[in-house]
């Protein structure tokens, strides 16, 4: 294509399409089998009902925080889990508090929670103030949520989504009042803090498995199975890539700097690098059209 276009890593694009295909195929399969596919036990998710039960016994609210990210797949997934939590809390007429940093997440959360109360047949129990926009600044948000935790003595808390430095502030404040905490962060740097401070932690893609695990909807179960197949495909690709890269490492090419000499391939000359992330070609406008 004229050398003008940067065909960036075609194999990466093909691989992404293949993974998307796997997921859609398994969604189709699960729909046909009504979602009767196996999902292993996840202790953190089994603890959800126990935590809400404890909060009900104590007559204290359940706190939910969908992270501090914007409205994206992560926060929607967190709200999906919170819909289940709210459903269970609504059955026992247990108060909830859902604190948001992002106004878009707040708006969507409000709709979802209202919808849950309506579906459960108790729309009169829905309190519009249970879903709150606290602040759009990270530490003002952390201070605000910590204040709610300490004032209302929440008995159970679900911290799920994109968390950053505020993760430990929230988890330790909750710990100080003896609340049960179920947490998960898609930020890998925050997971250790949650592991250290919380009672139950969902690690990595368990967060995305949660809605399938809790609701057993065929679409979600199929999607989860597709993700697992994709993981196998990625593992196989890594193995193959390691072998090809090792073979490339043995190759010798003429050395441009020293005539008559040979040298090993540089990292960006290896086949794998070129397939996934080729070098940007040089191009300057010629001053005309083709």
């Amino acid at each position, binding site marked *: *294509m*004229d050398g*003008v*276009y*940067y*065909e960036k890593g075609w194999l990466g*694009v093909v691989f992404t399409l293949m993974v998307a295909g796997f*997921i859609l195929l398994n*969604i189709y399969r699960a729909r046909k089998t009504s979602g009767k596919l196996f999902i292993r036990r996840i202790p953190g998710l089994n603890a959800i009902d126990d935590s809400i039960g404890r909060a009900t016994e104590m007559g204290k609210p359940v706190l939910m925080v969908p992270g501090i990210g914007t409205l994206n*797949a*992560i926060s*929607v*997934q967190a709200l*999906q889990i919170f*819909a289940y939590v709210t459903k269970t809390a609504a059955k026992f007429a247990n108060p909830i508090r859902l604190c*948001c940093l992002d*106004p*878009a997440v707040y708006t969507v959360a*409000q709709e*979802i929670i209202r*919808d*849950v109360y*309506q*579906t*459960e047949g108790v729309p009169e129990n829905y309190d519009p*103030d249970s879903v*709150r*926009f606290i602040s*759009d600044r990270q*530490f*003002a948000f*952390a*201070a605000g949520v910590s*204040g709610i935790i300490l004032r209302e003595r929440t008995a159970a808390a679900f911290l799920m989504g994109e968390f950053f*430095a505020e993760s*430990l*502030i929230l*988890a*330790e404040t909750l*710990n100080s009042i003896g609340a049960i905490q179920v947490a998960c962060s*898609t930020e*890998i740097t925050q997971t250790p*803090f949650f592991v*250290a*401070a919380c009672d139950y932690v969902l690690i*990595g*893609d368990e967060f995305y*498995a949660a809605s399938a695990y809790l609701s057993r*909807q065929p*679409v979600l179960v199929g*999607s*989860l199975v597709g*993700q697992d197949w994709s993981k196998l495909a990625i593992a196989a690709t890594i193995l193959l890539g390691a072998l090809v890269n090792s073979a490339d490492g043995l190759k010798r090419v003429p050395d441009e700097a020293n005539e008559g000499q040979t040298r090993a391939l540089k990292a960006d000359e290896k086949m794998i690098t070129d397939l996934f992330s080729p070098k*940007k070609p040089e*191009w300057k*406008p010629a*001053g*005309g*059209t*083709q």
Partner: protein
Amino acid sequence: MEAGWRHAVIPWLAQAPAAPALNMWNAPAGTPEIWMKVGIAMLAGFGLLAALIAAPTRLRRPISGAFIFLAGLFWVLVFLFPKPIDSQTPHEQRPRGFVQDVSFWLADAIPVVSNFSNILTAFILGLGVFSLVRIHLMRVAKKQNDWPFSVVLLVSMVAMATFGYWDWKTRLDLGGAKVDEAWPLAAYGKDLLFDGMLQVMEAAMFSLIAFFILSAAYRAFRIRSVEATILLCAALIAMLNLMGAVVVTWDGMIESFGKDNAFVMNFTLSSVAGFIRDNLQTPGIRAIDFGIGLGALAMGLRLWLSLERVGGN
């Protein structure tokens, strides 16, 4: 002829920096044209919203699904399509062809499409502020528990918004350099509230983490199970490896056993810490990252194709 319609239609949605006259999205600032466009856009937006609300319930989902699909399709195309090496290339120097045109159009349209979401976010921020004000006004009116804190919040919010706007307007009218020199009340107030109070209070919240790390680490590192013991040992090695005096002492001791023995040298603190980092921690993090990435992809696909049912459904 075929290229003619492409060149007429494709720049329509793109905010090409070199040729603003080619598209309908921009006009010189302060002109009646821009206000007219803003008005038309507002009317169109509210009209669409009203139409969606008035639509039968069974149709709302497919309509919003169609919008989501179109919006998602744009970003899928941005990802899949070959990219121009230099999207700043002037129009007259761009090579012509269907693929090339679409490629440049996609690159040029990214700011326009991104602005759509920025505008929506600005509207939604108003809803957030409304919720905050309503909750705290009610609390003050009903004299609920801790209502004085709500008064502080409302006063702070109004003061920050007032001084923020006043400072911005003053800088716009007088110029930033003059404001910094004269330092009027607007600048003083904004500086006091933002740099003098907000930033400092945020820093105080951040600094709490240091104490929380200590208390969380104390609980996590207690030897309760095999996993906790392994965690403790790994953390101990990682921490000791950051202490110069310990590293020098330990590594010196190992070297005294046999500096030329490669096997013995594997037990220096930096080698053990490096082994844990490179062979245990990094692969573990990568594996978790793959899982998270795949989960996000699956979630994105379900949202894009409207397969996701969120809420009480």
